[in-house]
């Protein structure tokens, strides 16, 4: 007898397939008028290698502006969500986001340094370098006698974030108004300057980090039980903590370097999924990837086309995500954390 798919399984499949819908929906959204039929024709022409008679500007808008922005949005959303889910698993704390280890503060400082004082340096590179430096410093500070307690990591992250925030404040004080404006806008997080070169530069580390997290995801279930319990089943918790921290940091840093500090995605997407599907990381991690990708790109659709001007997507993720998250929190006991 064939088993009927349960409601939960259908929902699971829906969330796994959501990126496809989000991709096409987002490709149809934009201030430059292109008819959906023309857009599909253009996409097909590139896939199957035939020519079309549309104006050249259509190609530019679809393939140089819209497509990179949609793909970058999906990549960044996926990175932040999967990293957030991983960090929440390692730290066994529902308040954790991908920025817990000072990553966002380090990135913001690097970007500000580049914008203010290093005109020849790529903002992306500077943000990436300092975000990883911040994570490295946090880990180094928290590790004593070959052990890295979770509480120490969190506290070290707070200290490192505070230091980089203070250094950022110094830069903001010292620069002229125009540079300050650029810095503030970068920190708010935006996909407005998406390009193929940003995707090419961020993709390798995003892919590496996500692959590691996906392949090793069941070990997060073991780590979630605690260090002693993990050792008792033969898992080396210190080793896997480092592996997951590196993987999640690489993915999140690559996202922050190209899009700035987009808040709340890495915190609330895993929680939303946990409330619907429970805390099993074997399900949670792949769903964080797909739902995170869809969530951010759909929110960015509003950020770029909802009004006549560009709104930093980080502002919209907070305004949209927070009330929805609050609703879920009230309707599900303990937020799915058990």
């Amino acid at each position, binding site marked *: 007898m064939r088993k009927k798919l349960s409601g939960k399984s259908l929902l699971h499949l829906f969330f796994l397939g959501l990126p496809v819908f989000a991709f096409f929906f987002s490709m149809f959204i934009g*201030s*430059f008028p292109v008819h959906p039929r023309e857009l599909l024709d253009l996409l097909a022409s590139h896939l199957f290698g035939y020519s079309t008679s549309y104006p050249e*500007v259509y190609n530019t808008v679809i393939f140089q502006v819209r497509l990179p922005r949609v793909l970058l949005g999906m990549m960044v959303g996926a990175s932040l969500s999967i990293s957030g889910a991983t960090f929440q698993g390692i730290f066994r704390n529902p308040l954790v986001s991908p920025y817990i280890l000072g990553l966002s503060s380090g990135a913001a400082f690097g970007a500000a340094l580049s914008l203010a004082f290093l005109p020849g340096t790529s903002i992306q590179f500077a943000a990436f370098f300092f975000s990883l430096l911040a994570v490295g410093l946090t880990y180094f500070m928290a590790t004593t006698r070959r052990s890295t307690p979770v509480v120490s990591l969190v506290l070290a992250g707070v200290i490192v974030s505070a230091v980089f925030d203070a250094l950022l404040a110094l830069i903001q*004080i010292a620069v002229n108004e125009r540079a300050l404006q650029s810095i503030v806008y970068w920190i708010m997080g935006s996909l407005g300057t998406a*390009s193929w070169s940003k995707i090419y530069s961020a993709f390798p580390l995003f892919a590496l980090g996500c692959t590691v997290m996906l392949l090793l995801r069941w070990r997060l279930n073991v780590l979630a039980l605690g260090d002693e319990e993990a050792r008792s089943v033969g898992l080396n918790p210190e080793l896997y903590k480092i592996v997951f921290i590196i993987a999640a940091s690489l993915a999140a840093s690559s996202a922050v370097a190209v899009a700035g500090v987009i808040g709340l995605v890495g915190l609330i997407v895993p929680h939303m999924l946990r409330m619907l599907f429970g805390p099993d990381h074997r399900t949670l991690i792949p769903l964080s990837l797909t739902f995170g990708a869809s969530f951010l790109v759909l929110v960015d659709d509003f950020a770029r086309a909802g009004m006549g001007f560009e709104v930093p997507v980080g502002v919209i993720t907070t305004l949209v995500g927070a009330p929805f998250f609050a609703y879920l929190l009230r309707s599900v006991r303990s937020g799915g954390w058990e």
Partner: protein
Amino acid sequence: MKKLAVSLLAIAFCLMLAASSVSAKETITIKDDLGRNVTIGSPSERVVFTMENALKTYYAVGDAKNVAALKDDKWMRKLTEDIFSVVDPEFEKKITVNITGDQLNLESLAKVNPDLIVLWASSPEDPNLLAINDTLKVPTFAIYVTSLKDVYRQVDTMGMISGNKERAAAVKKIMESYVAKTTNVTDKLAESDKPKVFWMWTDVYGTAGVKSGMNDLIEEAGGVNVMTLAEKDAQEMEHPVVTQETLIKLNPDVIYMWYNEKLDPKDILNGDEFKGWKDINAVKNKRVYEIGNPSIFDAFSPRMPLALLHVAKDLHPDKFPGLDLNRTVDQYNVDIWGVHYPSMAKA
């Protein structure tokens, strides 16, 4: 005895009158840019300037010796070269007042012993205004310049502050004559000859709204702000940020960059990051320009006519064939400040 007492009282009264007439200084009450009534000495003799454009205006109309102190601004100082030292021989010896972010250092202000402080403020509740009024009790003059008309008003008010109204009127006439060098040409342009201009601030997609000062500059220079074709909610903002798609849709004929340390016009024309811009008219026709020096071509100071000429010449090069901008800058400097501009060809 009674006569002696009356005589002594009369002498004392006369002495008091004499003393008060010596110590009473003439004062005037003027309105600042926020509409506040400010009572100041006429002229004010120890003025602190925390804004470079107001300082430029004061040097044009007032006595340099009344400038007691100015803002410590290393970024702007490297762009102004030594022009201020040429205008004011005592410039390098002037006291500098520290600013942290937007916050004036009250102690460094107190050290100057000013009788007037000129500072930027967009509201009477500005923290610096309130702090100075509460602690130092020194008159404060708020500067809030957002349009080209405000620049002329600033010349008038600096004339009143310095007690040189006639000089202020003369400076305004000179400014108007230089503005006319542009408007005599651009006023005659047909609408179809006016290019659509995208004003690019340093944040690249940030531009000038239709109510901004830069919008006025574009229009006076014979252009049309491309934001007039944008959606209303974006138009009305002072500094709207557009998406790349919107920019392509608006399709400006000219892209005019404000001074940018990280980007040059060639980066817009050829850079990897701007591949998506290649179909914009301005990029196709290589009409991307940049303001060379934001201090020389400061649109919100008496140098406004120079900024206007700079932009107009780029928008309509065929209409200004003989214009040598460097010589014009130098001549303007001589006319307004009485000195040649150090790095420019002498007019």
